[in-house]
């Protein structure tokens, strides 16, 4: 069997078997994500040696069948998904505060993993619609695990996710009516810049931006991500919003006509900068720890949108690398940050940022994880975030006419520095006397640090990574 398919099949089959046997054992999920990770790495190896491959599902010819495409990027994304699922699963299995014990978290997270894996592989517009619905419903079910207090956020999340899917579907219907195929690779050669195509792409883009919580359609994200159980928040922020982003990237950079991309690029880049500044500002103002981290997700997605917009406007190929480096660095850092934030707020017994006063003494390792992950989000060297920002800034600084955009990146960096240091500064205060139920769990705290260490590890092989990705990332 093709290793990429194995990487998809493992979590799917595990989820079904766990449901059938009513087993809620963490160990199965962890084993499945480990196996999926190994398979994804095997697929990555295969792709880098033999080149990318197309799988025709059902063995039919291309416009008829749905096709999977295994490229280096999709194999990398498969590995990334499995890795995050594994790391979050390890934490969720260990921590008392993960709010996942004896719940349906385990099968649902496996479904989440499987639907993301099929998203990375698929190239079919309608298949993406079904996957996005699957992803959205799974995410909503996971958010509602947190109990009644999260139901309001879950309901709004579900409604917006459905509305976004319907926008996307209307656009797909228009494209199908115009060109008669659903396969994005075939569409790439056919698309013309006429009114129908333009409108279809507009509707699709609005839908995907709403799903990926890109500014200004991000308002549903902070309550949903902050209200979810900690492990779920990490999965949602690190992985789920990247799904629609991937589709958006595929459509605009591979399918849409170049001149349409040129017109749309500046608008996307501007929305990216606006996201950086406004969500950064909101993160500085919010009183709750997890809401702060959630706003930071919105802000960080602004970098990806900025990179995509400029990629479309100027066609600089390095920006592909910047975009995906951002996705990987942000995923790892944000997983760490959400896990640390959740662990700290549960250990200290308050959701308020002010409760973190003296956290360096009470929950030192989790606070360290938060700071390390925050460093990557700001883009401090030597971290994955720094690498991404470095690749993004290079083409911006070379051309004087691009400097206003570079200023936007600078503002975003300042905003992220502000909200990260807001927490860090508070944590170095003298700690108040601990609450009576204060009972820290060092192992769980170390597990929250793991993804953050990996994102700093990305910088070790920084130059090779950039070079390699420039060769494969499109």
């Amino acid at each position, binding site marked *: 069997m093709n290793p990429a398919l194995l990487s998809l099949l493992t979590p799917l089959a595990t989820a079904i078997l766990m449901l059938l046997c009513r087993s809620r054992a963490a160990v199965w999920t962890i084993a499945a994500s480990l196996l999926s990770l190994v398979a994804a790495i095997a697929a990555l190896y295969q792709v880098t040696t033999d080149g990318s491959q197309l799988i025709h599902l059902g063995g039919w010819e291309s416009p008829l069948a749905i096709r999977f495409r295994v490229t280096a990027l999709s194999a990398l994304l498969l590995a990334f998904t499995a890795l995050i699922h594994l790391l979050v699963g390890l934490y969720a299995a260990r921590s008392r505060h993960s709010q996942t014990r004896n719940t349906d978290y385990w099968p649902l997270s496996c479904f989440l993993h499987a639907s993301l894996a099929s998203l990375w592989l698929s190239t079919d517009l309608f298949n993406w619609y079904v996957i996005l619905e*699957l992803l959205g419903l799974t995410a909503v079910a996971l958010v509602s695990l947190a109990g009644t207090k999260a139901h309001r956020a879950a309901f709004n999340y579900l409604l917006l996710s459905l509305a976004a899917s319907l926008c996307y579907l209307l656009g797909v219907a228009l494209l199908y009516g115009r060109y008669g195929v659903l396969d994005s690779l075939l569409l790439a050669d056919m698309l013309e810049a006429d009114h129908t195509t333009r409108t279809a792409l507009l509707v699709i883009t609005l839908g995907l931006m709403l799903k990926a919580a890109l500014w200004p359609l991000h308002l549903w994200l902070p309550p949903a991500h902050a209200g979810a159980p900690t492990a779920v928040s990490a999965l949602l922020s690190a992985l789920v919003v990247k799904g629609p982003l991937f589709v958006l990237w595929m459509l605009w950079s591979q399918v849409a006509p170049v001149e349409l991309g040129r017109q749309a690029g500046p608008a996307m880049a501007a929305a990216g900068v606006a996201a950086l500044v406004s969500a950064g500002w909101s993160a500085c103002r919010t009183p709750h720890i997890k809401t702060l981290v959630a706003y930071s997700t919105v802000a960080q997605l602004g970098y990806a949108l900025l990179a995509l917009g400029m990629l479309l406007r100027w066609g600089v190929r390095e920006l592909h690398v910047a975009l995906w480096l951002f996705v990987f660095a942000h995923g790892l850092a944000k997983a760490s940050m959400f896990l640390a934030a959740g662990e700290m707020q549960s250990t200290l017994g308050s959701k308020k940022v002010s409760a973190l006063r003296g956290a360096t003494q009470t929950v030192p390792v989790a606070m360290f994880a938060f700071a390390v992950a925050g460093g990557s989000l700001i883009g401090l060297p030597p971290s994955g975030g720094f690498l991404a920002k470095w690749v993004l800034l290079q083409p911006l600084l070379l051309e004087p006419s691009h400097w206003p955009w570079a200023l936007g990146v600078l503002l975003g960096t300042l905003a992220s520095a502000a909200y990260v240091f807001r927490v860090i500064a508070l944590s170095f205060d003298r700690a108040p006397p601990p609450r009576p139920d204060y009972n820290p769990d060092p192992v769980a705290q170390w597990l929250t640090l793991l993804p953050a260490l990996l994102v700093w590890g990305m910088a070790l092989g920084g130059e090779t990574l950039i070079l390699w990705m420039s060769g494969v990332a499109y």
Partner: protein
Amino acid sequence: MPDAEWLFDGTLGILLLVLAGAALHARSLYAAVVMFIALGLMLALTWARLGAPDLALAEAAIGAGVTGALLFSTLYKAGMDRHKRATPNRIALLLPGLAFLLLLTAAWPLPEMHSPLPDQVMAHLKDSGVSHPVTAVLLNFRAWDTLLEVSVVLIALLGVRQLYPSHGEVPTPWPLMLAWGRLLAPLTVIVGGYLLWRGTDAPGGAFQAGTVLAAGGVALRLIGVLPPLGWHQWPVRLLVLAGVLVFVAVAALTAWLGQGWLHYPTGSSKVLILLIELMATASIATTLTLLVVGEKRELRP
């Protein structure tokens, strides 16, 4: 008789728009829900008019059956007649006009376009194992979509499991209800089975059959003919999971031993498709029934 067609189309169009508008702006929730059920009926007529009997079947069973019961099950004593009217948002009023023009001009040239896919479907229909093109697309050419779709139904049930059970006890049925329900039960099963069986060579199939059975299941549960159903009962669980389980098993086996993911071996396509359809029908019927009337609460709130 083009004029007669216009009379029909025009009336249907007005009915659809009026019902949709009334459902959104009715004074009471109850009225809105009833309007919406009527809209479902009219949609089924529209699909029939547009030459899509498969869809008319599905819409009749879903729109007039399952969704209606679902909406009624969420109506409560409190808040049923109190419908908060939001102040009309100026953006919400201005944008639709512009958007309608934009979309309509985008759709204007589409009726003249031609797609290569229908011809391809017809060309490969004889290799697909079934003779009804819609079923061939659903269960062979685009079977992966269908697998994911069956998973979506399952996920919806898993999501509902995390919530409160539906409200309260059902009142004791009147004798007339019991008698009528018992009379209809076998008929529902027969019609469902017939839809499933004819799906390979005529409109019908797993989803239509599953939804009809679910509509019957809901009614029977509400008059107490069916026992309480819940996830904790293993036969129920097996039925819910059967569709995805068989589908994934076929996918895995064809990828591992056969020629590729969901590539049915020549000659056995029809058997495999029938097996998958049978299991999917069972799953969809059980899952939709549980979605409406599943009441046992086993998880913490």
